[in-house]
């Protein structure tokens, strides 16, 4: 279903040193490309989802705050080509750290076609406030409830359909680390973008 290719080449270190370079690169890309932005608190699996979508290796670890740069890659789903943007973690619209500010500026200045708010299924109550903020802001947001497998392991069941109803935005459950729910996610993304364009 998807065919992905790398936009960034060179070692990790090179990428790390290329501070904010990605921002200027983005605007010159062809118009037909849709823009997808991944946001969420640190350590919810944004980078894993980014890797799965683009095939670019962003450092992944079980440690909050590993992504300190904006990473960009490309992903093709069916006929649609997406520019995928992975952002540093952000807890709330009220920003504290420089990293959070980077993410907020990006949300406020670039016009994404879709924002994937990635959250940890085990910690919904801590993460949904930002979903509400994104909805409040009138941004095109889709909620990705990640780490569904871990939530299940600790005995948490989440009614995704009900959540979708209550929030009024599309919601997808995934376990990106073990590659579960990724196809559904891609399908819903395309549906969403098409519907929005129409």
């Amino acid at each position: 279903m998807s065919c992905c290719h790398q936009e960034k080449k060179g070692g990790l270190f090179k990428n790390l040193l290329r501070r904010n370079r990605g921002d200027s690169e983005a605007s010159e890309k062809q118009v037909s490309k849709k823009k997808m932005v991944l946001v969420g608190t640190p350590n919810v699996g944004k980078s894993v989802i980014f890797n799965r979508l683009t095939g670019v290796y962003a450092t992944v670890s079980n440690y909050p705050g590993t992504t300190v740069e904006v990473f960009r890659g490309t992903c093709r789903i069916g006929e649609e080509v997406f520019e995928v943007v992975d952002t540093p973690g952000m807890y709330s619209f009220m920003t504290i750290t420089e990293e959070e500010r980077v993410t907020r500026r990006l949300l406020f200045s670039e016009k994404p076609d879709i924002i994937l708010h990635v959250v940890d299924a085990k910690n919904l109550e801590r993460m949904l406030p930002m979903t509400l903020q994104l909805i409040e802001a009138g941004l095109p947001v889709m909620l990705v409830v990640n780490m569904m497998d871990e939530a299940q392991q600790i005995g948490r069941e989440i009614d995704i359909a009900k959540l979708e109803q209550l929030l009024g935005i599309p919601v997808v459950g995934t376990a990106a680390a073990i590659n579960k729910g990724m196809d559904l996610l891609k399908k819903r993304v395309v549906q969403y973008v098409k519907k929005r364009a129409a």
Partner: protein
Amino acid sequence: MLKSERLEYGAFKYDDRIEKAIKEIESNLKSSYNVSKRTIALLLLQEDSEIQEMVRMRESSFSQISEIVKKTKMLFTEPLYYVITVQRQKKVDEIVSKVVYTRRDSKNRLSNWLDKITVQPLTGIPILLLVLYFGLYKFVGQFGAGTLVDFIEGNIFDTYVNPWVDRMVTTYISSEPIQELLAKEYGIITLGLRYALAIILPIVGTFFLMFSIIEDSGYLPRLALLIDRVFKAIGLNGRAVIPMVLGFGCDTMATLVSRTLETRRERILATLLLSLAIPCSAQLGVVLAMLSGNTAALLIWALCVLLVFLLVGFLAARLLPGERPVFYMEVPPLRLPRLGNIIEKTLSRMQWYFLEIVPIFIIASVLIWIGRMTGIFDAIIRLAEPLMVALGLPPETAEAFLFGFFRRDYGAAGLYDMKGSLTWTQLTVASVTLTLFLPCIAQVSVMLKERGLMTTAAILAFIFPFAFLVGYVLNLILNVTGVVW
């Protein structure tokens, strides 16, 4: 679908006083924003400085808006940020109660228990010591830096590679300077590559492997919680544990990550401490290997570096103005690391590290060669000799310090090389000084990029004399108290 339950855009309402203020501010916002005016209004109510600045530039009615914010603030005893957060959280809790079902689970209890014992000081500190002892000392220090290095260096390089290279070079190349460039004591192959492959590779490899396991298990954030209190005393918070712990992997990367810290003051503190008192994995490994034969020497080294870390942190925190931030961090669950992920991560880090160091080791070899051919090298070493003598070290150690300029680990590896001819006192003093001594070239370049020229210059101007001062004092103490081997 129950229409009334559904949360349409803007349908989630705060209490009337807030909603009224939002409406009033919205009507004063005339220019267009990429996000809803409701969001802008809410951020203005919470006095977000960046948004205030943006609106001030764009709206002529900014003073009216400020009035509205002021008026609304008077209606509440708590700050508006708090009020808004609490109301939003209430809505979230309501939603969560409708979509999340919790089963009781025994697995849950086990991980809760593990959670608790890693974070509470009484049990957490012994666990930390165990992790350090087995993970760092036993695995990286003894196995990686001891067994593996001995094998690769002793059995492969000293027995086969170096004699072979020396023979080939003397047979096929007649020019003596070129012979020395490639082989013999300081050659690219016999010194540069030997340091890289025989000393640094096994140490960094074992370290990255251990670090990846600890990282993926979710132990690090718990460590952050555990030592938050210690860090507070030196003007940092638990969040700074991230760059500090990463620093034990590579100080260069850690300096980059210090960007996640909240205030400029914290970032400067972290940069200073990283360049002074946090040895990187390669340096740490070499020091562990060098001193692991003598527990007292190792303890003295660790204690010295720790003391310097705390003392300098404490004093710098007093000197640097600025507010202390509060600590909040998401703690992920403890996980059983996946073998595939660990291997991928370790390899990708080793690859990155290697691409990074091999050229520098080679360049360093060439520079040393040029320095020796032109006599500059000897001149610098002669200049540095009095310093070495002041530290109670033989003049030749100046070489190791000179290497240390190129890379931290290169210097430590140089010292490791002359291990046999030094006493334990000398090794301890040299290790401490070298650990505190200047950061490597890559780290300095990142410091320049992140902190600017002035800050970097100030940090370096402090570190250089300070490292030698500590070495000097330590040598005095060791000699006076008679703790000499």
